[in-house]
């Protein structure tokens, strides 16, 4: 194999890449500038003498660790629930034939066509009347299952040779054991694709947590941070520091899991 050398295309690629991630780099840079420097004209792109003051002030002004904790609990519970409900449902669709199978499958897929806005008001009213405003359960409930997840896991299970199950059953394996000890382990790529996608989507949720959380202790990262921008007298440096702080977890997960997530989603969405 040729060993391609760094060339003009590499340079153009890097420049384009830097342009695209410019807003993120800009935020990072601003977060390291002292307030007077941000406000000075002309606007600066690079911090002359970087300081972490903005981070100190961000963590002092807003309970950012609490926001991160809330979002982590929410994202992890929605993630586990979706992986579980999707896999179980997909198992039924792939390994059983039963009355109403096609109808139920289409009915699940059809939920993708219902826009969030058409159900979010009713879900809000339901959650409110169940006294679940401002609670983790309220944050969690509407997202316990997803049609995309069911579809993704179904596509995955279809690729697992049927002989696996036949052999396992012959050896006296029950459905439950087959599911946990054989099927799920061999389906790890799809499971992690779904898990990563689900985590990032939940971490980035805005409208639902905005509606149902009221107290500062229940706010999720996106709500908490955007409230900083509506607060009076807060410097841009502080806001950008908050932005960077809550971006780190999702970016890390994205960079680590990107390949896997794309592969899994493509298999589910296009080839299906």
């Amino acid at each position, binding site marked *: 194999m040729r060993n*391609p*050398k*760094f*060339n003009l295309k*590499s340079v*153009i*690629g*890097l420049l384009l890449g830097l342009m*695209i*991630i410019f*807003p993120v780099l*800009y*935020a990072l840079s601003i977060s390291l500038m002292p307030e007077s420097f*941000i406000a000075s004209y002309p606007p600066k792109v690079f911090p002359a003498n970087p300081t972490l003051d903005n981070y100190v002030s961000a963590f002092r002004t807003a309970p950012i660790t609490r926001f991160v904790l809330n979002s982590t609990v929410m994202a992890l519970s929605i993630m586990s*629930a979706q992986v579980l*409900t*999707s896999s*179980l*449902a997909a198992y*039924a669709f792939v*390994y*059983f*034939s039963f009355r109403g199978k096609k109808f139920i499958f289409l*009915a699940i897929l059809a*939920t993708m*066509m*219902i*826009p*969030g*806005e*058409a*159900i979010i*008001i*009713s879900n809000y*009213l*339901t959650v*409110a009347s169940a006294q679940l405003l401002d609670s983790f359960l309220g944050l969690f409930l509407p997202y*316990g*299952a997803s049609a995309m997840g069911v579809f993704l896991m179904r596509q995955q299970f279809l690729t697992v040779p049927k002989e696996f199950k*036949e052999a396992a*059953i*012959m050896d006296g394996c029950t*459905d439950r054991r087959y599911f946990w000890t054989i099927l799920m382990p061999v389906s790890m790529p799809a499971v992690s694709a779904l898990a990563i996608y689900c985590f990032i989507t939940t971490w*980035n*949720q*805005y*409208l639902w947590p905005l509606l149902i959380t009221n107290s500062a202790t229940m706010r999720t990262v996106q709500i908490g941070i*955007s409230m*900083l*921008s509506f607060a009076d007298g807060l410097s*841009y440096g502080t*806001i*950008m520091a908050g*932005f960077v702080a809550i971006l780190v977890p*999702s*970016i890390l997960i*994205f960079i680590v899991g*990107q390949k896997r997530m*794309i592969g899994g989603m*493509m298999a589910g969405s296009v080839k299906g």
Partner: protein
Amino acid sequence: MQKVIQRPLEGAPVGSRKQEAKPKVIQRPLEVAPVGSRKQNRLAPYLFLLPALFFFLSFYYAPFLRTIFTSFAVTDATGNFKKMVGLKNFIMIFSRKDFPVILLNTLKFVPMIVIPALVLGLALAMFANRKIPRVSRLVETMFSLPMAIASASAALVWGLIYNPVIGIANYALQTNINWLADANFAMFSVALVTVWLQLGANFIFLLTGLRGVPEDIMESAMIDGANGWRKFFHITLPMISPTLFFVIFWNIMSSFQAFGQIRILTQGGPGIATRVLVYDIYLEAFMNYRFGSACAESLILFAMMLTIALIQFRFERKGVHYA
């Protein structure tokens, strides 16, 4: 599945016997299974479905029905049903003076995002399709990064970029524009943020699509003397049409639902210059507490999205080639 097959063999109708005769050999051990477990197995698929169905029924279907119901009703400020009013909510919405503007804003906003996001995404994907020496992985990650960023977070950063005094936008362009408060620019500015948010995902999906095009097809086209544009329109585009179709569909649906960036950047303003349907639904429900009319509006949005989806699927049959 196997369990269903073995028993009826004795009395099964002739037609079905043919297919069932073959697996019989493998199935033998199953015959030992007690009758009880077989009965249980008839219920098994439903048990596997139960958790998912619980969520779909309680948090998708039930609320959707409730939304339909509420759109024909008035409620009190906490959302409790007061009385049925028939089509009055819909009539009120369509007689509002600002409603045509809101609809128009929505219909302008969607193509303002989908077209650039698609063209730029495809251009980036074609650029990265053949390996970029040394830095391939890094460049791909940079191109796709906006995908991981929330609309709300992105809005904070772009809000600073757009700041008329200390923002970098005016300085870089040597302009003096009030990007978010000037009715001529506000929609453009919000759309740009949304394009940016969408670009990463479009890039990565289209790149995966392009990489799936078999190399020999491209080579034989080159030998046949096809030039760049011909190759693009006659081979590349048809070959990735399933991916393109998916990306367009998904972009349209998500542009209709853009919310976070609008709320943080402009709150639908100045005036109602950036008020799209989703934002108006939010205002009606959670600022004005008119849940009936908000539900009616969300059904109008649903109808618009459904219409566009149906048109698209119609088009799919003609324009999309599945290998």
